[in-house]
């Protein structure tokens, strides 16, 4: 009886209700990843790690395989809505709801250094060269406090540039992605070259070539400690870089356009990009 005395919902609220429902639907549908972006769960693993991991991993692997089948069904069922969802989240500025933070944390430490070859403007050969560690921005032998907040933006920019450069082939489908991949490290080279030139070059010198060298060092597996001797050797190498660019004067070699490799302690530097 009481419900008959309640005034009906206003027309504006009905309209707003429809918009809210559409908004929520678009967010949910827009959050569904393309099945091709998901890792395939092939079989249940049997890790020999700690008891908790050993007990849960095979069960979770089985559950993940089942979940991927459910996801496929959801993806196919919502296919007619994908166009609307993408249009709406793009138009509204909300973007695709892909919250992949730490989805697949790397199992290795990453270091990036820039090598600058310097000489007179018209020189064919470099007179001197310098190596500068540019990533990560902070020192590893100190606790990161307030400055690291700003450093985190620099690290993010370099990490995204690297990710663009190493974009997996299956994601290089659109022309924008291809461009991002080929030019991913251009901003890094350009910015650090300019900075080095302003800080370290004389008026009659210029950078003839800049290279980016990447080192990836596997981290200790769970349940194991990193070898202290190896870590100390690496820290000793890194400390030389923390004092500023390491100069080689005069530079007697000649730079090459091929992909090279160098080793310092456990850091195996690979020349990934030169310009």
């Amino acid at each position, binding site marked *: 009886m009481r419900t008959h005395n309640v005034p009906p919902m206003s027309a504006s609220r009905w309209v707003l209700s429809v918009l809210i429902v559409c908004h929520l639907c678009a967010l949910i549908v827009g959050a569904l990843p393309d099945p091709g972006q998901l890792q395939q769960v092939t079989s249940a693993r049997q890790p020999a*790690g700690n008891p*908790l991991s050993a007990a849960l*991993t095979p069960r979770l692997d089985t559950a993940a395989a089942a979940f991927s089948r459910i996801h496929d069904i959801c993806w196919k069922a919502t296919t007619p809505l994908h166009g609307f969802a993408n249009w709406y989240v793009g138009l509204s500025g909300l973007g695709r709801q892909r919250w992949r*933070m730490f*989805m697949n*944390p790397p199992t290795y430490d990453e270091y990036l250094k820039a090598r600058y070859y310097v000489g007179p403007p018209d020189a064919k050969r470099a007179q001197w060269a310098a190596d500068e560690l540019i990533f990560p921005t902070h020192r590893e032998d100190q606790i990161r406090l307030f400055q690291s907040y700003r450093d985190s933006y620099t690290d*993010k920019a370099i990490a995204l540039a690297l990710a663009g450069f190493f974009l997996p082939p299956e994601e290089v489908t659109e022309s924008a992605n291809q461009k991002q991949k080929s030019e991913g490290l251009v901003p890094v080279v350009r910015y650090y070259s300019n900075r080095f030139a302003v800080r370290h070059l004389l008026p009659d010198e210029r950078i003839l070539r800049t290279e980016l060298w990447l080192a990836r060092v596997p981290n*200790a597996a769970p*349940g194991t400690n990193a070898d202290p001797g190896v870590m100390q050797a690496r820290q000793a190498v890194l400390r030389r870089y923390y004092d500023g660019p390491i100069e080689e004067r005069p530079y007697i070699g000649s730079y090459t356009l091929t992909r090279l490799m160098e080793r310092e302690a456990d850091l195996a530097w690979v020349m990934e990009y030169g310009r």
Partner: protein
Amino acid sequence: MWMATAARHDLVRRWETFWFRQVSPHSYALLRMLFGLIGFASVLGMTPVDQFWTPDGLFGVPADGLGFKAQVVSLGYGTFAGRAFFVILLVSFAALAVGYSTGAAIVACFVGSVFQPLWNWLPLSAAHHVVVVVLFCLLWVDCGRVWSIDAWRARRRGTPPAPAPDDPVWPLRLIRFQVALIYLNSGLWKFNGELWRDGSAVHYATALNVFHRFPSDVPAALDWLSTVGTYATLIWEIGFPLMVLHPWTRRFALIVGVLLHIGMGVTLELGPFSAIMIASYVAFLDPDVVARIRWRPFAFRIARPRESREAAIR
């Protein structure tokens, strides 16, 4: 027939109460202040200005075609535009935090934040995306009616804003939905990752040299802790949307969330991400409790309710 009509009316009434009941504006004001402050700190973090905002910096290569960015850069106005963009966004977030010309400030913050990845996506992380989606929800409500310079100026002019409560709850509910979706989505992506299922993800995440705050790694003897942390994070993130449905479990979910994000903030350098996620939890607090916060210099307290909760809602 009568029963079906009554049930339909009841459903509509519940729907209307759920989305359109009026709440005090203080939750919106607190979200405005927190996201204004965090947005301000985020923009300020992207300095020196020429490093992140101008074409000579760590600046994504302009796209081909007739894009605005490519046009501006090719005309030689890239440096000016980047610096102007930085100043406008910084001032907008400051205005949002203090509630000065709040309506214009929140539009400027939202539009600027949406435009930011188009200008330079390189320094932006998921934290930026969270700010965008929360600002989108705050666009639809006047969040400068209390705890703002706008309200203070209105009082001085003798035209105080309408007495609270009279803001609709639906933008607050949209923020709740959005935050729940973030955790669910993040949890399901993690569930797809092998390292999360075998319990080693937290071990590897805390060991990463780009993020870890302390020079030394977690000793192997404490590895069980990272395994527990991995599974607890997975369960908590996927379970978050369910836990926030009921007040008891919601309290648990939020406390765990605060502890988790503080733990992440202490051990890893993730920029403003932890602060942003904790700030978003304001949307889950009872608006009437938030309305009773009394600000004092360097301290605040929550006043006792002077009227029943039902009366306050009405």
